[in-house]
């Protein structure tokens, strides 16, 4: 790949006050025949080197679409980004040419997907696919690239990497395939790694191993990690901070420990109460009432109001802004104080 594009991204180095990656008031719409789907409605979050941000939310909350917008892999059209900025080291990625963006993809910001089997090309061996990263982007020869691929497979702890380098994806187990995807994504030492539900397709013991692996790789390379998940249990150990999404908005931003102890948004609180506990055996599980919002026809005011136990008249008419509670926390709720104190219910 030639590096001839006029827009040159800042190299690694001091960041000053600018975070490594900052998503600012991002809006994404899908213009479909049925109408405009407002998938992301003003998402703002930031990530520093060595930091892990967990983006939490249910299906359709916009967490994956935000990630795809950062990567620039949304199909446009039908997707449109009418507003917002995605700044990587201070440069707005949305203003870059397609050429310059493809320089960022994989090399500076990489992504791991949910289903590792379908994310690997079935017709090539895993060694070929990993070493392709080195051949294409680093101009290495076949042999050298394959040696690097084996090293990388060792690094993501694939046993007997040397013997297995010429195997095809379908010959690996789910956990091993996800390790191979992770190996490919970290091949070029990206500064940001986005993992979109990396453990959803795996069984519980393997989930823990993959999370541990991601955390270790992050410690070794000091990259920023965005972990997209709907599983509160997965993030507790590895995340530094959590952004909770609902209806295409961030509803709560907080360091990981605060959010588990004292949620400041009724939706977060509902999520935490829905986690099954060992001491609850035999009782009904708690569930948030109602359905996720229809993105074609969002509720007025606060998107969560039809399901919210704290709802007042103002929630139906006025959407609460994401406002600071303390230096590190923010919540988008008119009644966050009540939620925080637990005075209701």
């Amino acid at each position: 790949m030639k590096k001839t594009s006029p827009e040159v991204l800042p190299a690694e180095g001091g960041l000053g006050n600018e975070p490594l990656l900052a998503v600012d008031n991002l809006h994404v719409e899908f213009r479909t025949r049925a109408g405009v789907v407002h998938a992301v409605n003003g998402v703002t979050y930031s990530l520093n080197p060595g930091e892990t941000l967990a983006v939490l939310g249910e299906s359709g909350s916009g967490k994956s679409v935000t990630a795809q917008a950062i990567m620039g892999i949304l199909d446009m059209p039908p997707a449109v980004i009418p507003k917002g900025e995605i700044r990587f080291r201070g440069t707005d990625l949305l203003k870059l040419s397609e050429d310059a963006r493809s320089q960022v993809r994989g090399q500076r910001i990489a992504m791991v997907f949910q289903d590792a089997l379908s994310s690997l090309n079935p017709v090539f061996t895993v060694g070929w696919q990993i070493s392709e990263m080195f051949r294409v982007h680093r101009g290495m020869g076949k042999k050298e690239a394959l040696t690097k691929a084996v090293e990388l497979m060792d690094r993501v702890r694939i046993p007997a990497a040397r013997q297995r380098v010429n195997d095809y994806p379908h010959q690996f187990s789910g956990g091993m395939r996800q390790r191979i995807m992770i190996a490919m994504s970290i091949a070029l030492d990206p500064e940001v790694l986005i993992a979109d539900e990396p453990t959803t397709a795996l069984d519980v013991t393997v989930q823990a191993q993959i999370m541990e692996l991601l955390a270790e790789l992050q410690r070794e390379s000091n990259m920023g990690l965005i972990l997209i998940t709907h599983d509160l249990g997965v993030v507790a150990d590895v995340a530094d901070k959590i952004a909770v999404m609902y209806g295409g908005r961030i509803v709560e931003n907080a360091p990981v420990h605060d959010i588990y102890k004292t949620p400041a948004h009724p939706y977060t609180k509902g999520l935490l109460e829905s986690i099954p506990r060992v001491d609850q055996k035999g009782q009904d599980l708690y569930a948030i009432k109602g359905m996720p919002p229809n993105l074609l026809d969002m509720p007025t005011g606060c998107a969560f109001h039809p399901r919210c136990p704290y709802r007042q008249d103002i929630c139906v008419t006025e959407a609460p802004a994401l406002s600071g509670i303390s230096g590190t926390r923010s919540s988008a709720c008119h009644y966050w104080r009540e939620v925080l104190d637990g005075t209701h219910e």
Partner: protein
Amino acid sequence: MSDIQQPAQTLPPNAPSGPPLPRSTKKEGKPASLWSDAWHDLRRRPIFIVSAILIAVLVVMALWPSLFTAIDPNDPRTCELATARQGPSGGHIFGRDNLGCDVYARSIYGAANSLLIGISTTLATSLIGGMFGLAAGYFGGVTDTLASRLTEIFFAIPSILGALLIAATFRGGPLSSITLVIIALTVLGWPMTYRIMRAAVITAKSQDFVVAAKALGAGHMRIMMRHLLPNALAPVIVIATINLGGFIAAEAALSFLGVGVTSPDISWGLMISDARNRFLDAPLPLIFPAVFLSITVLAFIMLGDAVRDALDPKLR
């Protein structure tokens, strides 16, 4: 690490290394790609073996016809007008045609032109149709719309009529009659390959590994050549093999109608055409090239069927 499948180092040195393969019939140490799997499947199909032997014989016939017959039909001295339409005899097992030439030798020598035209046309249609189909399927939008409308125009032309028109219009020009037939069949044949390729690419494009490849920094060319093409190739190979037989038949039809291969070149279609007027007096000069033609077309269609069955895992 519970998802370790089988650590090789704990095995005795003579045991097979690597995990147990999903198919027990596979040889050790050889990973199973789609193609090696298909080949494995193919070579135990009787229909493939029969068609492969037939095609092998035809190819040898086309390359070294003198292995099959001592008579060179391109040499006019081998024809004797006095013996025209003579029945089978010792030196001329298929008898002689209207001009007293040996039918057997001419049938053997006809294989070369039929295969040349069939294979060239198949390569040309696969290349053109495949390229357009890949681009249209991948880029979609305006590219796709333009290319698809263009193919619909070609689809609207009845193919024999269209080929007839092209071959008749440019006859006698600088191009040889064989080249002209290849061009005419290619012009009318590529939209079929285009459609198959485009559909296969659209299916492959929506798979996660294409998005994943893009997220890891692959450009358009790389995605098309490395990720889409290998995964969309199977149906194109199948249709190409089946079409090959069709093109050979179409060449015979054009030659029969007098706009295909012309004398002194030898073609089965031409032989059938020459023999048809005296069919009731001497049926053999028509029947033998027709049998050669039918067997050739059948062999390629059978091969195409076998390849399709081997490449489509859902049919197993």
